[in-house]
């Protein structure tokens, strides 16, 4: 069996009619427009509401509390005063949105090259570890170079981690889904080792606590809304917004982006047109990982400041990035909006809810986030469902409103 496999052939031969994931998504995007993702989210929230109703809670009250918990009621009485609960909650929602944007972009960029990067979580962790290490090991350095070094190295580390999957795909044809899943778990266990007893990044002052050192004051990102001690919103938020613009510009205004999209639509055609498929697979994966690594760096330098063994299984940002990218149709604007939705959901269902007074317990609501996330991903993966609902409605409208249409057409 091994002799047969060693004959030189291009990796990943697309089989005849099977279009890549990216091209099918693009086709459905043209077909469904903005309505489909909106409908997807609405259906997911409805089903989530049914679960809440079936277990004896009031879904309307629950969603209202989650809405307020996420600070979205801030728009009714805007203020910059973070002593105000709504304003504080909104700042926390935006904090979550920051890393979600970047993790969403990580999934979206690979998607546009026809790859499914499930490894956002692992790349995020690697960026986080590196930022943590550099954040406290050069204490006393002047702030700007310190932050820059930590951010750049963490981003590069995320890119390298994802690059492993890219290189394996380009050279051996190993499926990126399998390799990124494995890399995720390797990153998780490496983290358990780094921060665990006797690990290299474990607290140097207290050897029994499986938590890292706090990063140096100089390496912390400036907070522009709220207070640093109270986990205020840091300038990384603007970096994430800028990343959305960069993502758009790279994909739509550069040769690199053109090549990446060409490979994503049809690797055969791209290769025929003189584009190196292998080079673009590696490049797209590395850029993808860079986004996730940057997310890790901003979270670490922006508000976490330290990390421990117990934080590892709790973190789900990288996985949420999958839902964000899919719901956002792998476009810059879409990812931005979907990140805000999931950021609101993430904070609004957990810390934003007060345990005693709200109509649904945060522990229940937190899991509601996963259910909604799962439904969104499920429905986006099967656009057929949402499209068919949409088409059926169009048909009904055409039949019901047939006379109106006929009347409109009659004069012409």
């Amino acid at each position, binding site marked *: *069996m*091994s*002799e047969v*496999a*060693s004959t030189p052939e291009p990796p990943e031969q697309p*089989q005849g009619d*099977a279009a890549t*994931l990216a091209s*099918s998504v693009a086709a459905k995007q043209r077909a469904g427009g903005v309505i489909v993702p909106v409908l997807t989210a609405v259906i997911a929230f409805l089903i989530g509401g049914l*679960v809440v109703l079936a*277990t004896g809670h009031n879904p309307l009250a629950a969603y209202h509390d989650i809405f307020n918990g996420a600070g979205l009621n801030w728009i009714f009485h805007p203020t910059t005063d973070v002593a105000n609960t709504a304003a504080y909650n909104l700042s926390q929602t935006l904090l979550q949105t920051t890393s979600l944007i970047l993790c969403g972009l990580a999934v979206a960029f690979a998607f546009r090259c026809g790859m*499914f990067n*499930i490894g956002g979580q692992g790349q995020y962790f690697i960026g986080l570890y590196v930022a943590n290490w550099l954040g406290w090991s050069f204490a006393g350095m002047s702030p700007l170079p310190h932050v820059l070094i930590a951010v750049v190295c963490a981003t590069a580390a995320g890119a390298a981690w994802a690059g492993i999957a890219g290189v*394996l795909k380009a050279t*051996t*044809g*190993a499926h990126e*889904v*399998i*390799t990124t*899943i*494995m*890399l995720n*778990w*390797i990153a*998780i*266990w*490496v983290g*358990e*080792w780094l921060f*665990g*007893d*006797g*690990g290299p990044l474990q607290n140097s002052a207290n050897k029994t606590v499986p938590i890292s050192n706090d990063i140096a004051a100089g390496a912390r990102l400036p907070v522009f809304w709220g207070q640093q001690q109270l986990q205020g919103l840091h300038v990384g938020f603007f970096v994430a917004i800028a990343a959305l613009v960069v993502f758009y510009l790279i994909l739509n205004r550069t040769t690199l982006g053109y090549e990446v999209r060409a490979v994503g639509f049809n690797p055969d055609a791209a290769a025929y047109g003189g584009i190196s498929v292998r080079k673009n697979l590696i490049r797209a994966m590395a850029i993808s990982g860079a986004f996730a690594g940057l997310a890790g760096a901003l979270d670490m330098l922006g508000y976490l400041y330290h990390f421990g063994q117990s934080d590892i*299984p709790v973190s789900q940002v990288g*996985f949420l990035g*999958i*839902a964000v990218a*899919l719901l956002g149709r792998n476009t810059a604007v879409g990812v931005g909006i979907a990140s805000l939705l999931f950021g609101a959901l993430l904070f609004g269902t957990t810390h934003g809810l007060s345990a005693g007074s709200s109509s649904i317990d945060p*522990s*229940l609501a*937190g*899991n*509601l*986030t*996963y*259910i*909604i*996330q*799962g*439904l*969104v*991903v*499920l429905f*986006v*993966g*099967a*656009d*057929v*469902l949402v499209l068919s609902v949409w088409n059926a409605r169009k048909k009904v409208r055409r039949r019901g409103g047939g006379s109106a249409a006929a009347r409109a057409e009659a004069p012409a």
Partner: protein
Amino acid sequence: MSSAPWTDRLDNPVSEKLRDPAATGYAGLLLAVFAGFLAIPPIEARQVAWSILVGLVAAFLGLWTATRGRRRLGIGAIVAGFTGMGLGALAMQSSTGNLETVFNASLVAQMFAFATPLVFGAIAGMFSERSGVVNIGLEGMMLMGAFWGVWGADKGGSWVVGLVVGALAGGLLALLYAYFAIHLRADQIVGGTAVNFLALGITGYFFFQLYHGNYVSQGVSTIPDVNIPGLSGTKFLGPAIGDLNLMIWAGFVLVIVSYIVVFKTPIGLRIRACGEHPRAADTVGINVYAIRYGCVILSGCLAALGGVYLSDGFGGGTFNDNMTAGRGFIALAAMIFGNWRPFGAFGAALLFGLSSAIALRLQVYSASASTLFNVLPYVLTLIAVAGVIGRTVPPAADGKPYSKQ
């Protein structure tokens, strides 16, 4: 007479077989394992020279194999030879007392205990993928089994009810996935990822709703251990296999049965046909959709049984949030590592189970090293899919939705 090279005199059928590249390659691999084993309990060689000697012989056999066409196998044996040498040398650094706490008969029992969820998960994944449906959702289906299984055992009062309820819950989630993957032709990887999120949310939600996030009440009926009467007094077999959980034995049976079903029966042929070339299968009158639905649902039930074992057998009737903690993905890895075959998957599951068991025991040396040991299954799978040693070959139509014409 003297003109003939000396090797001609060896031309008899037996030596022919022995000099076959495959034979020398596998012999090299075995010797490499032996080089590592020299240092640990039954033998306990105390001199590094022994390990180096055996490891070098293994590497030599690998080199010989590699030069005669079987390059991957040969390189594998060479790498394994040097790894065995290194591990043997490392083990000889430590005291025999420590070695005996790590490597003893109960290690075998622990290996089986860690491997069993993986065995169920890997066989589950094999059925689904052999029929042409990628199942990334194993983790979620296993998690469903873990929670609803222990819930069933608690409310139904018997572990049998737990097994049934757990399998049903996993099967139900698999049915949902099958509907999306087969009927709606959704992307299977996206769908599988969604299944994992859903299961995480559903189990977490109902764990809090039904048990307030606390432990499941004490005294839940748990899956019993099978006590083999004759073995309890013996030195090695007693602690190794004398008192294994029922589900571990069920796992062994499952591997054999699934091998027979997939490779020796007409229904297995149909399953494989759907995974290799659904159009051809359809042409000869096989109902591709029915086969795929059946396989995915069976896959969900089996993965869930692995989950029930985790919560109601291994865990002794407890549950906690995200209890499977990536075991579904290790099962997926075991299936890939085992090349989509029952015995291959079983072997890989045992290897991964052994590495987990050793990782747990290595804490006598160093907590941090034992933690790092847990990455082994993932690294090995990464190497396997990259095709450095041998190549894994998925079913040809794996992951491709089928639409009838």
